[in-house]
């Protein structure tokens, strides 16, 4: 009887090999998943995901840097000149084309809210400097304009505008 089974082309043993292998692979994946997933941001980190900030204390022409999700965020009260400059730039001059309107909220053009990390490798650019009346990242020489758009240097993208909205005329909610 045993000889009969051994001679057939696929036998029970083959099935058992494949089945064991498949169960083993699923089992290994099930074990690996939580071991990888524990690396993701934990609950205490995620809890800081949303903040409110009162912008009324910032006079025109000045900026503050606040913390959101452990990241620094620039809030700038732009001058009329800076807004003019930003609006005057033709889109064809931009590496990462975005209009000034896309980067601010309608009716609140004087407020520019951006994550303060250079989009190249994450340094914090210096305000009111660079060749475009905006920000300059001293690490690798990226120049941003008065709307925080990349104009020259190795950074590939404009400074990131985080998700935010005006809760009232002076209160913004980030996140």
């Amino acid at each position, binding site marked *: 009887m045993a000889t009969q089974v051994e001679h057939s082309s696929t036998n029970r043993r083959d099935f058992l090999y494949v089945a064991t292998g498949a169960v083993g692979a699923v089992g290994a994946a099930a074990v690996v998943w939580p071991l990888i997933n524990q690396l993701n941001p934990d609950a205490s*980190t995620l809890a800081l995901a949303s903040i409110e900030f009162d912008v009324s204390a910032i006079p025109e022409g000045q900026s503050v840097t606040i913390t959101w999700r452990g990241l620094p965020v620039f809030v700038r009260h732009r001058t009329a000149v800076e807004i003019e400059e930003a609006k005057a730039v033709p889109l064809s001059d931009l590496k990462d084309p975005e209009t000034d309107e896309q980067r601010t909220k309608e009716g609140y053009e004087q407020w520019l809210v951006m994550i303060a990390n250079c989009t190249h490798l994450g340094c914090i650019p210096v305000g009111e400097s660079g060749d475009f009346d905006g920000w300059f990242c001293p690490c690798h*020489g990226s120049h941003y304009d008065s709307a925080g758009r990349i104009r020259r240097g190795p950074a590939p993208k404009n400074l990131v505008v985080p998700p935010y909205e005006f809760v009232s005329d002076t209160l913004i909610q980030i996140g």
Partner: protein
Amino acid sequence: MSEHSTYTPGNAVEKWLDDRLPVVRFAKEHLMDFPTPKNLNYWWTFGAILVMCLGVQIVTGVILAMHYTPNVGMAFNSVEFIKRDVNGGRIIQATHAVGASMFFVALYIHIFRGLFYGSYKAPREIIWILGVLIFVLTMATAFMGYILPWGQMSFWGATVISNIFSAIPLVGENIKQLVLGGFAVGNPTLNRFFSLHYLLPFIIAAVVGLHIWALHVPGNNNPIGVEVKDSRDTVPFHPYYTMKDLFAMVLFMIPFAWFVFFAPDILGHPDNYIMANSMVTPAEIVPEWYLLPFYTILRAIDFNVLFIDSKLGGVIAMGGSMLMLLIVPWLDTSKVRSGSFRPMFKWFFALFVINFIGLMYLGAQPAEGIYVTLAKVCTAFYFIYFLVVLPVLSRIETPRPLPTSISESVLGKAHA
């Protein structure tokens, strides 16, 4: 090359052990009797020096971990505490920090030795590949170790380097969050880097074991690159090379000790004496000197190529500059192994060494003006050396005649 063991257990205990776990036989074959070319020069002693360096780092590191606290609020002060309050902590901390630099000095010399004498060529490709793996693991370990004191350079170095992950298309930002354990470098990052910084040296030690195993199958290369022909070409490893390596280690320890005792912080950046602050970037982010050449390559790419933006391009160039080493055995097809007999190769190799030092210098300079241009030129030559110079030289160069054997080259020199 591995000759049949001549070990005969000397007494009843050794005999008993040899039948169960032949470690004494292994030591006799690989650390004492192992036949080694008799013409190895001092560039060859850096292998042993590297084993010593790894040992020093593991011993001092295990001790430092007994006093260090991996928490963003306490890490900076715990390092100061080690230096000021722990008995002898000043010396142990300095040995570990300076030791990292000395490790890389030896590592670079060892790699350049291999590149010059063709130690990567058949039948030693696997040794070379394992060596490149050790190099990359060591850089990763050193990088994570540099984060632990939680100074300004630590923090911003971690930010800059972890941003490399965000260059990956589509999933980059998620991978970065996975690596950091948060939206930015923070406590989870410090904790996991500490854990990995403790783990990786043991993995390195294991790969070093494989590296030496792979070396002991074909045996050592040597300065003339001619394979061992008979037993007259070799001497036993002990006492000839054990003593020579020991002497070299003593010499190596002189500058090492000078740094530890007289200038323990000179190789680091002063900004790391400012506690990490996520709201202020140092004026310049300068990594440790041994990472500078690759850092220069990373930032030399400040232009887009087709759909690859400058950031991803820089990351690809930096990764490529290291992975390039993996395929050197197949880029250099010259039949002559040692650079000593290759008149043109010699000059290009010298240029490559100068270029590498240039890349190192440029990494510490601000990214503006002439430095940007020079960085691009040096980066280009780095790749040209591997992808163009090595394959082309292999075809067009006429090497000088080789000695017929190691013995002949050694004795010939003595007569001259």
